[in-house]
C-alpha cells in the first residue's frame, strides 16, 4: 500500500511531465529574426529605429501606463519565454513587476546577467543620483538615480547606439545593417534636434512644476527649470499642505505651467493651476501615450508642441 501510493504520487508528476513533453512543440522561429521584448514602449521605439525589419519587437508596458506599477500578468510570460533579448529601463524602475516575470519565464536567455538581458541605463546620462543615505522617508526614491532618462535626445542616441551594438553582437551577419540603421537614425535625430531647439529656444530658463520626477532629462536638455513637484515626495500622493506650498512657490517664482503624466489624476494639478493661474499640460513621458505618438520623434514633437503652446500662452 505504502509503495503503491508512492508510485502513484510519482505517477502524477511523471504524467504531468509527459503531458508537457508530448505537446512540447518546437518553437517555429522565423528566419532568424531576433525576438526582442522591451519593458517600456520607449525602449521598443528606439530598438525599432535600429532594428528595422530584422527584429520583431514587443513592449510589456503600454505608453499610457505608469511604468512603476505594471501588473506582472502571465500573458507577458508568453512573450518573454520566446524572447532572445530583453531590454529594460533599469535603475529599479521595473523592480515591482519584472523580476517575477523573468524568474517564471523559464527562458535562460533573458535572465538577469545573461547575454539576452540588456539594461539600457548603462548607455544613458543619469540624473538625480541620491547622495548620502537613502531612506524611504524620502518616498519611493530610486537609489541608483532617476530612471526617467529617455526624454533627452542625446540619451536617445546613446541608447540606440547601445542597442545597435547589442543587435550586431547577437546577429553578426546583419551587423552592418544595424549600424547603417543607427547612422540613419542619428542623422534624422540631429536634424530633428535642430528643429526642436529652434522651437524651444525662446523658452529657455522657463520654470515648470511636474507631478512626478519624470522630467529632469528633458528639462536639462531644453534648459527648463523644474521648481517643484505636485507629489510631496516621489510616489506619495499630493497632500493639502504641500499643494498650498507649491501654489505659493509658483506665484512667488512666476511659474505658470504644471506638467502631468497621463496616468495621474488631474484634480490636484487643476486646482493648483486655478490658484496659481497656471496652465495644466498633460505631457507624454512615453511613446504610445496617445495613439498618434508612435515613435521617438513624434514623442518630442507632441510634447514640444504642447509646451510651446503653454509657454506662449502664459508669456
Amino acid at each position, binding site marked *: *500500500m*505504502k*509503495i503503491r*501510493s*508512492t508510485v*502513484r*504520487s*510519482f505517477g*502524477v*508528476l511523471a504524467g*504531468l511531465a509527459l*503531458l*508537457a513533453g508530448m*505537446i*512540447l512543440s518546437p518553437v517555429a522561429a522565423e528566419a532568424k529574426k531576433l525576438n526582442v521584448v522591451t519593458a517600456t514602449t520607449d525602449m521598443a521605439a528606439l530598438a525599432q529605429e535600429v532594428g528595422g525589419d530584422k527584429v520583431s519587437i514587443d513592449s510589456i508596458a*503600454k505608453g*499610457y501606463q*505608469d511604468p512603476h506599477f505594471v*501588473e*506582472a*500578468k*502571465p*500573458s507577458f*510570460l*508568453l512573450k518573454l519565454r520566446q524572447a532572445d533579448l530583453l531590454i529594460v529601463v533599469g535603475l529599479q524602475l521595473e*523592480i515591482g513587476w*519584472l*523580476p*517575477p516575470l523573468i*524568474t517564471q519565464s*523559464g*527562458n*535562460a536567455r533573458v*535572465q538577469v*546577467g*545573461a*547575454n539576452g538581458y540588456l539594461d539600457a*541605463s*548603462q*548607455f*544613458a*546620462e*543619469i540624473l538625480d543620483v541620491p547622495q548620502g543615505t537613502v531612506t*524611504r522617508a524620502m*518616498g*519611493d526614491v530610486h537609489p*541608483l538615480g532617476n530612471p526617467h532618462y529617455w526624454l533627452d535626445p*542625446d540619451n536617445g542616441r*546613446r541608447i540606440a*547606439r*547601445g542597442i*545597435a*551594438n547589442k543587435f550586431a*553582437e547577437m546577429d553578426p551577419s546583419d551587423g552592418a545593417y544595424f549600424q547603417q540603421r543607427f547612422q540613419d537614425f542619428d542623422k534624422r535625430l540631429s536634424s530633428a534636434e535642430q528643429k526642436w531647439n529652434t522651437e524651444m529656444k525662446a523658452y529657455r530658463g522657463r520654470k515648470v512644476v511636474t507631478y512626478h520626477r519624470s522630467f529632469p532629462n528633458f528639462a536639462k536638455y531644453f534648459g527648463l527649470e523644474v521648481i517643484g513637484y505636485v507629489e510631496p515626495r516621489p*510616489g*506619495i*500622493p499630493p497632500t493639502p499642505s504641500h499643494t498650498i506650498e507649491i501654489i505659493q512657490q509658483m506665484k512667488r517664482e512666476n511659474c505658470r505651467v504644471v506638467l502631468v503624466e*497621463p*496616468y495621474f*489624476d488631474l484634480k490636484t494639478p487643476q486646482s493648483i493651476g486655478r490658484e496659481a493661474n497656471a496652465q495644466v499640460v498633460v505631457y507624454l513621458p512615453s511613446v504610445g501615450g496617445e495613439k498618434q505618438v508612435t515613435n521617438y520623434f513624434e514623442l518630442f514633437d507632441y510634447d514640444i508642441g504642447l509646451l510651446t503652446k503653454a509657454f506662449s500662452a502664459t508669456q
Partner: protein
Amino acid sequence: MRGVFLFLVITILCAIPGYGQQAGSAPASDQPDNAALMQKIRDLEDRLVAVEGQLRVLKSQQAAPVPPGAPEQAVAQEAAQSAPAEQAPAQPTPSPTVAAATSEGGTQAGTLGGAGGSAAKALNPDISAIGDFIGVAGHNPVQPSPSLQMHESELGFQAIIDPYARGDFFLSFGEEGVNLEEGYITFTALPAGFVAKVGKMRSAFGKVNTLHNHVLPWVDRPLVTNNLVGGEDGLDDAGLSVERILPAPKGIFLEATGQLFRGDSGDAQHPLFVSSGKSDVSAVGHLRAYKDLTESTNLDFGLSYARGHNDQGSNFLTQLYGIDATVRWKPLRRSIYHSFVGRGEFIWSQRQELPLEQKAFGFYTSGDYQLGRRWFLGGRFDRSSRSEFADLTDQGGSVVLTYWPSEFSQVRGQYRFTRYAGNIDTHELLLQLMFSLGAHGAHPF
C-alpha cells in the same frame, strides 16, 4: 573598486587637456569651425556618459556572484562582455585605455572576492522585514484569537545565486516561535522552458494557499482554508516542484505545475497531511489557464489536486480537489487609482478515516474594489464543512476596509460574522497594521 575609479578619473583627466589643446588650435586657423568643435565636445560627453554607465555596470557586476572555483575565468568573461559595449560609443581613439581599466578593475574584483568594504555589502541578498500586528475584539468560543498580537513578522532574504538559479527565504517569527515559511532555490535556466524549485514552499494548490499573509486582501484566511486545507500554514512542505508553460491557442496562457513533498502539512491543530514513514509523500498538481479579455480585464482559472496521508496513519489518504477562478479589472490609464478583483475558490476534500470516509466541501467568494489611490473596500462570503466531520458546516461573511498611507504600510479593518455548526454566532472586529522595511521582492501575479 576604488582602483578602477581612480584609473578612470586619471584617464579622463589626461584626455581632457589633449582635447583642449586640439580645440584651442583649431579655431585660430579656421574660425567658423564651430560645428566640429561642438561635435568634439559632444563626443567627449558621450564618452563620459559611457564611462559612467560602465562604472554602474561594474558595480552591479560585483554584486553578481562569481561562481566559486573559477573566479579568473568569470572575470575574464565579464571583461570580454563589457569590452564590445565600450568600443562603439568611444569612436575616435580611446577604447584601449578604457578597456584596460575595465579588465584591471575586473581582476581586482576577482581578488577581492566580495570580501572587502562596499563590495561585501553589494553581495548581500535583498533583506526585508514585514510586521503584522493584529487586534481582535469580540467573543469567539470556537476559534479564539488573542486581543492583541504581533501576529507574524516575516523576514525575507532574496538574491540571485548564480547564473542558473535564484534563492528565496522567508522566515516567519510568530508568537510561538520561528518557522521557515518558505526557503527554496529556483532553477531559472533549465532547458525546454522548465522552471524547478527545490526546498520548502507553499504549494501551488489553488490561489490563497500560495499567498503570504501580507498579500492577502483580508486580515484572516477563509474558513475553507481552516477547515479543509490545513489552517493558516496550509499546504506548505519540503519537496520539489516543476512547472512549465504549455503550448495553447493564441492569447491563452496555460501552465502546469507538479510538486512532490515529504507529506507533512497544516497547522498543529489542523494537520492536513502527516507522514508516518518515508514513503508517505504527498503530491500536488496544478493547471492554470489565463486570458486577457481586454487590456484592463483578465480571467484566471485553475484546477488543483493534492493527495497525501493523514493523521490516521499511512493507510489513510486525504485527497483534495480544487477549482479557482479570478476576474481582474484595472484600467491601465488610471491603474493606480481603481481596480477590482473578484475571486472564488471551491474545494472538495475526501478524507479516509474510520469508520467512514468523510467527503467535505467548502468555498469562498470575494470581491475587492479600489476606491482611490489609498482606499480599498472588500467583502467575502465563506462556507465550508469540516474535513473530519463532513456534516458539520460553518459559514460566515466579512467586510474589509483597507487604507494605504504608502506602498510600504497599510491599515485594515475587518468585520467578521461567523455562524459555526450548531448555530454558534460570533461577531468580531479585526484590526491590522502592516509595515514593510527593506527591499521585498515582488510577488507573482
